[in-house]
């Protein structure tokens, strides 16, 4: 079901999908289906990656030159569009990751130790 589990599943934070997609591609080129699966799987199914956000994101990343795309054959020999991290994309991932760490650290410090 596309939207049924949405209320239980955490909605992805604005702007974090790009970072997660870039992170996924660090292990090698992948197509949209794999990217979505990997993100969902490694987040222990906390995130649900919908087509409606994944493909616009990929399109954006390609337009900014952070990933490059090519058509190839998938694992089960189907035609699929593969995305590959570029050098600029790698740099961007480092920038975004450090910014994210900073953000999380800051929020953690503000929240402090909340019991319950």
């Amino acid at each position, binding site marked *: *079901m*596309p*939207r049924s589990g949405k209320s239980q599943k955490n909605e992805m934070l604005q702007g974090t999908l790009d970072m997660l997609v870039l992170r996924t591609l660090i292990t090698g080129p992948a*197509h*949209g*289906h794999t990217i979505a699966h990997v993100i969902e799987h490694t987040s222990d199914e906390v995130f649900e990656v*919908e*087509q*409606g956000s994944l*493909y*616009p994101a990929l*399109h*954006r990343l390609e*337009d900014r030159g952070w990933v490059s795309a090519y058509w190839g054959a*998938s694992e*089960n020999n*189907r*035609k*699929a*569009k593969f995305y590959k991290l570029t050098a600029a994309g790698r740099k961007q991932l480092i920038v975004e990751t450090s910014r994210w760490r900073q953000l999380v650290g800051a929020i953690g410090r503000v929240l402090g130790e909340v019991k319950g």
Partner: protein
Amino acid sequence: MRLSRFLRRRDQDADLAQELDAHLQQEADDYVAQGLPQEEAIRRARVKLGSTTRVREDVWKWNSFGFEGVLRDLGYSARTLLRTPGFAIMAIVVMALGIGANTALFTVVHSVLLKPLPFADPDRLVMLYERSVDTNYPFNIIAPGVYAEWKKDAQSFRSMAIFGSGSYNLSGDSGQLPERIESVRASADFFSTLGVEPAFGRVFAASDDQPQSEATVVLWRQPCDHRQQDPARRIALHRHRHHARIVRLSRRTKPGLDRLSP
């Protein structure tokens, strides 16, 4: 960047459609691997992925400019008007007349009411009249003697001048064809009251305003026949010889008169 995206958006859309289809197949393959029949697998995959058209529309919109909607609206209105040409022409004519009438009216209002007079302190400039008992002509132009009395007694005015209009036959010294010109006869302080100063030559002086002094003529448009640039020369008005001064007035003044003489 933006433009190249815009120009390639058709290809990109076709590409995206193919890509989304591939994704659907992958998803279906997963379900088949779980043991579902092909048809059910595709159905489940479709349900899971939702509308691919919406994804394509989002990307298409991102690749486009905002003004396309405006262009489409314009095209639509043009087609609607062309379908009913009679109505269209009527509407256009009515609007054209309305705009034209408004423009004409505003032009009049602007020059009559809004645009300040081209004189110094136009908001403090007033015209004084005598009150006449004849109700047909309630505003009577005063006689020079009355003006002299007014000028002597008036406390509220910084400067006061008198003028009246008329026309003369203007001819040169050497028997050129005379020319009929509109004129204003005015007292010496006429120009200083209006705050008009000559850029070239001089206008009236107080000494010109004496009964025994010779009448002084100020011309500010060279009459066609008298082209010499002599700033002080003799001309004839109604065959009486006068000393003429060619004056170019400064400021943006164009009082709409041809000549003045005291």
